[in-house]
């Protein structure tokens, strides 16, 4: 296995064997350990000293399904801390099957120079001039790349937001249909890519030399066992294929925790119109796809294809978090508008979550009215056009709050929150506050524990312990490249045993009960916390905005009540 290092300053590409200190790592574990070791914590995130690391999980490219996840890591221009942003699509499998453990962008191209990185079916990397692609939006860009290199091509790309180095800029990832609708959205890593002068990473999907498995026969047997646990999981087998993550609109509203109107209410009146159930029915009626395979190696099919009234493609993979940020937070209760906003963000190259929260803060400041669909569409278009307001919106919710003098900014460490209000789901507040990533929807998501009745979302007991357990587990599964949905099915002791048998067969050594996810997850989180500490973060950064402690959230009319000492104990290892 090898690491491909691309220096944008010198245009030199060098290939090195994976050093001992990075062995048995992939995904988030590799990006975070590498960033912690090789990036000066105090550096300018948009400068030459930052790295941008692309790493498939250490199981990506193997025969284990649901391992098509890619980690992208760097110092974040949004949070100022370490960032791992995770994307589905086709790139992770493509990179892994070329025998590449990571692609590392170093240095910085001269101002105004743009190129793209091509990796052919032999795993050979070359930098190609990309000046003619300047300003291109993602859909047109990917279409050009597929026309030039063929349909068996995975594309990671930035749009105008990334080129403009906006802190909400995403890196889009093409799905199995060649649409750039999957995203490494969080943390503004598209801006890092833009600052390096790289427009796209174009990878041949026909590689045939993945990282070898130490014991192929035992591995195959363990893969079957793990597949059995995923098939037996009701969410993976029944709910996700039929409703996708949008199926969460109903339960989270029903529990009064759906942050609406810039987190002023916990239920969006009329949420049924933008629910997963309504989405599935609409797509069935129009000839869209409520069930769709978006990522390589997927057996869950939680993706969808949204079409308009004429049956024309609008966007793919319309997710719960986007429906919330562009619907709940803005008060827009129209799936067609939300789908257009999703398409716009994917095309411009923007994190839908951070953008929706930024727009909501502007609406809350009186710039326009909540529920004004046309105004919200215009605001996101302004980001694409790079107007003055557009640049403020594209800089994220904190910048918008500062601009309008509005202190009600639902963000932690500069990153907009996710679709679970900490006042009605206390454990999410613990994760938002303490995750080294800032407020995050996958770092330690407790909604499953609430719905199964394992934990009461309004009582303090168990919130810190559960957040800690899930944060550690997700750090480990993100390192493996395992999709979040499948990971949830593997959290039981029996499934964990099967997964460790698979790891033992992969690496040719025994994985004991605490080795995965515990030991690995803690190692990753320790590295992330270490980077943030050296970048100047303190305990005071592990807190929620004041309004969560002071302003009761209807309908439960509760506030966030986990104390600072308890928060500080969450990742105290």
């Amino acid at each position: 296995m090898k690491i491909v290092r691309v220096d944008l300053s010198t245009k030199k590409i060098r290939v090195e064997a994976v050093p001992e200190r990075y062995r048995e790592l992939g995904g988030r574990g590799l990006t975070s350990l590498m960033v912690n070791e090789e990036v000066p914590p105090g550096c300018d995130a948009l400068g030459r000293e930052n790295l941008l690391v692309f790493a498939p999980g250490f199981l990506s490219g193997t025969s284990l399904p649901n391992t098509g996840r890619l980690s992208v890591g760097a110092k974040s221009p949004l949070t100022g801390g370490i960032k791992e942003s995770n994307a589905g699509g086709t790139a992770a499998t493509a990179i892994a099957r070329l025998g590449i453990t990571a692609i590392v962008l170093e240095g910085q191209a001269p101002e105004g120079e743009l190129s793209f990185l091509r990796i052919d079916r032999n795993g050979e990397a070359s930098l190609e001039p990309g000046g003619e692609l300047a300003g291109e939006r993602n859909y047109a860009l990917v279409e050009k790349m597929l026309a030039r290199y063929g349909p068996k091509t995975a594309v990671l790309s930035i749009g105008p937001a990334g080129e403009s180095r906006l802190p909400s800029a995403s890196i889009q990832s093409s799905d199995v249909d060649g649409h750039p609708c999957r995203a490494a959205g969080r943390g503004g890593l598209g801006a890092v890519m833009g600052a390096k002068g790289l427009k796209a990473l174009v990878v041949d999907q026909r590689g045939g030399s993945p990282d070898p498995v130490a014991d192929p026969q035992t591995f195959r047997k363990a893969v079957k066992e793990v597949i059995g646990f995923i098939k037996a999981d009701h969410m993976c087998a029944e709910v996700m294929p039929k409703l996708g993550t949008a199926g969460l609109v109903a339960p989270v509203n029903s529990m009064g925790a759906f942050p609406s109107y810039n987190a002023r209410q916990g239920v969006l009146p009329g949420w049924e119109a933008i629910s997963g159930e309504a989405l599935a029915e609409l797509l069935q009626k129009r000839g869209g796809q409520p069930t769709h395979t978006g990522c390589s190696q997927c057996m869950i099919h939680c993706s969808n294809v949204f079409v308009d009234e004429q049956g024309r493609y609008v966007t793919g993979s319309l997710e719960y978090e986007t429906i919330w940020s562009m619907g709940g937070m803005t008060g827009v209760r129209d799936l067609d508008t939300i789908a257009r906003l999703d398409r716009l963000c994917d095309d411009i190259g923007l994190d839908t979550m951070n953008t929706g929260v930024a727009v909501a803060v502007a609406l809350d400041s009186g710039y326009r009215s909540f529920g004004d669909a046309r105004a919200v569409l215009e605001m996101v278009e302004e980001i694409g056009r790079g107007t003055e307001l557009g640049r403020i919106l594209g800089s994220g919710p904190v910048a918008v709050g500062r601009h309008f003098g509005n202190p009600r900014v639902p963000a932690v460490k500069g990153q907009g929150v996710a679709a679970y209000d900490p006042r009605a789901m206390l454990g999410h507040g613990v994760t938002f506050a303490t995750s080294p990533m800032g407020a995050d929807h996958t770092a330690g998501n407790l909604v499953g524990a609430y719905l199964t009745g394992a934990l009461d979302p309004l009582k303090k007991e168990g919130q810190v312990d559960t957040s800690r357990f899930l944060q550690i587990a997700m750090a480990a599964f993100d390192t493996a490249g395992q999709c979040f949905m499948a990971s949830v099915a593997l959290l039981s002791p029996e499934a964990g045993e099967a997964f460790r048998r698979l790891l033992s067969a992969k690496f040719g050594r025994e994985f004991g009960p605490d080795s995965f996810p515990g030991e690995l997850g803690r190692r990753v989180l320790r590295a992330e916390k270490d980077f943030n500490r050296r970048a100047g973060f303190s305990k005071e950064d592990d807190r929620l905005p004041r309004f969560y402690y002071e302003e009761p959230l209807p309908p439960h009319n509760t506030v966030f009540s986990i104390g600072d000492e308890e928060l500080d104990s969450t990742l105290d290892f």
Partner: protein
Amino acid sequence: MTVKVRFFGTLGGRYPGCRKGQSLPVEVPSGATVQDLLAALKLEHEPGIVALVDGRVVGRSDPLPEEVQVTLLQAMAGG
């Protein structure tokens, strides 16, 4: 007594007219529990069923008050 039930997840499709959360009136004996309601709907063996009353998850042995509205859906994890 009559319990009004709203179905979400993939449950609504099983009850005509209830796909998008429209209420279905269900007759259960006075003092019935959540489990009794699920049995009346033939959902007692369905995996992952969650019952909510007034925005709170309720247990299978919890009694149902008169005139209550119950939301039934399926457990999911977030992300």
